[in-house]
């Protein structure tokens, strides 16, 4: 009796699991093919993907499943072969991903930029500083509260590179440096509550600005054109996962996706995105096709 129950359970479990797994393994001719895309929360939060993905899905009879996580986890999902393609913004980690043989044919897609936001009262007096590294050196010198993503995200990597350019090694024991290991939205809320400085991508800042009454952009200007510090630019790359390492990934569809995302037509959609809501684009296209045409 007991044995047959176990057997029954095992059969049920197998059926359920195979039912869950089958869409990715056996794309039928009728249903759409599934493309799994790992990207960062900030990319997903910007709403860009919701605006452009339907075009891809219609053209290739595909369904794109977006998994929005931290940059570290996005690349790890790729390295484990759990997704077909990644779209991230952390150049050094991307290069390591390629060097490890986990991804093939990285393409430039677009860029946006980072800004340093802080309390409107600006206790460290960094407003109008031309470069991010000078501003952060000033924050450290004044021991003004600074909150870090602290999650190995693309934004966190950028922050660390600015600190090292400024010649400062902030530690959590210093009393003014808070490392909270959370997403951009949570980090901005934290800065707003604690009257702290932080580094944010411009897209998340623009989207959340209305609820952050204690904060203002102090370095980076009102739009990307006004950003005087080229070190604050934030390039995005698309990388299909290497099929030689993970035979079950849908490499053909992932390559179509990368080609589609960098095509002139989609690049123009990216250039327009956000104009109506924010009066400025959230991303600036930078694929080879776009650069050749402009």
């Amino acid at each position, binding site marked *: 009796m007991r044995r047959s129950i176990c057997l029954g359970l095992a059969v049920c479990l197998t059926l359920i699991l195979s039912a869950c797994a089958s869409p990715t393994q056996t794309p039928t001719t009728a249903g759409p093919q599934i493309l799994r895309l790992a990207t960062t929360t900030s990319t997903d939060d910007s709403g860009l993907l919701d605006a452009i993905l339907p075009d891809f899905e219609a053209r290739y009879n595909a369904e794109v499943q977006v998994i929005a996580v931290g940059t*570290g986890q996005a690349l790890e999902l790729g390295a484990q072969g759990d997704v077909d393609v990644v779209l991230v913004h952390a150049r050094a980690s991307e290069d390591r991903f390629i060097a490890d043989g986990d991804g093939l044919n990285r393409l430039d897609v677009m860029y946006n930029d980072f800004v340093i936001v802080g309390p409107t009262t600006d206790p460290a007096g960094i407003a109008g500083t031309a470069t991010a590294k000078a501003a952060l050196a000033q924050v450290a010198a004044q021991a003004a509260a600074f909150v870090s993503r602290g999650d190995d995200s693309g934004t966190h990597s950028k922050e660390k590179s600015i600190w090292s350019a400024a010649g400062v090694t902030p530690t*959590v024991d210093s009393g003014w440096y808070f490392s*909270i290991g959370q997403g951009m939205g949570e980090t901005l809320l934290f800065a707003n509550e604690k009257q702290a400085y932080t580094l944010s991508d411009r897209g998340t800042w623009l989207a959340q600005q209305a609820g952050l009454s204690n904060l203002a952009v102090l370095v980076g200007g009102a739009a990307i054109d006004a950003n005087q510090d080229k070190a604050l630019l934030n390039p995005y790359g698309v990388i299909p996962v290497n099929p030689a390492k993970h035979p079950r990934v849908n490499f053909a569809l992932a390559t179509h996706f990368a080609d589609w995302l960098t095509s002139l037509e989609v690049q123009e959609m990216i250039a327009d995105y956000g104009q109506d809501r924010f009066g400025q684009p959230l991303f600036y296209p930078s694929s080879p096709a776009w650069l050749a045409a402009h």
Partner: protein
Amino acid sequence: MFASLPPIVLLSLSVSSAALAIAAVSGVPLGARLVLQPLPGQRWIVLLIYTGMGLPPVVVGLFVYLLLSRSGPLGWLDWLFTPAAMIAAQTVIAWPLVVGLTMTAVEGVDPALRLQLRALGANPTQVMWTLLSEAWPGVLAAIIAAFGSIISEVGAVMLVGGNIEGRTRVLTTAIVLETRKGNFELSLALGGVLLGLAFLSNFLLLRLGRGIVR
């Protein structure tokens, strides 16, 4: 990361223990009292307490966050993103569990005992304590269940504690962070530590609980 493990473990334990102590000291007598001297509208109170047992931690965290926020009514306390806020949130999560399960345990005691104690001239406080010691295994289970739910919750402490490295980072928020960073092995190890901790705490609680009665 492993070097920073001891303070994380210590904070997890101390925050959850403090919340449990507050919830138990206030919740156990209240649970017993509600059984012994039902209030008007008792059925509704019980319904609310049982509903509270299922409160999602993240919702509790949200309430506590809004209360303690700079722009909230208790903002002047300056508790947000400190262990005090985490203790407050976990107390709110643990409290209905302690009260509700204590009520169930006390209700399970033979009603004849209550009459007998009264007849022997015990005052209400003496009746309450005698019934509580009779119902002790159930009360202990209430406390253990409450501890299990708060030591393992992540939604509330993440929101009101802020997961600040070296200050408000606990095991569960560290697990979320390491998972998002893609450090699956480390997350798994931290999960193992959390499980071991829960095992040890329950072991101690059970030993301690037996000691009180026998």
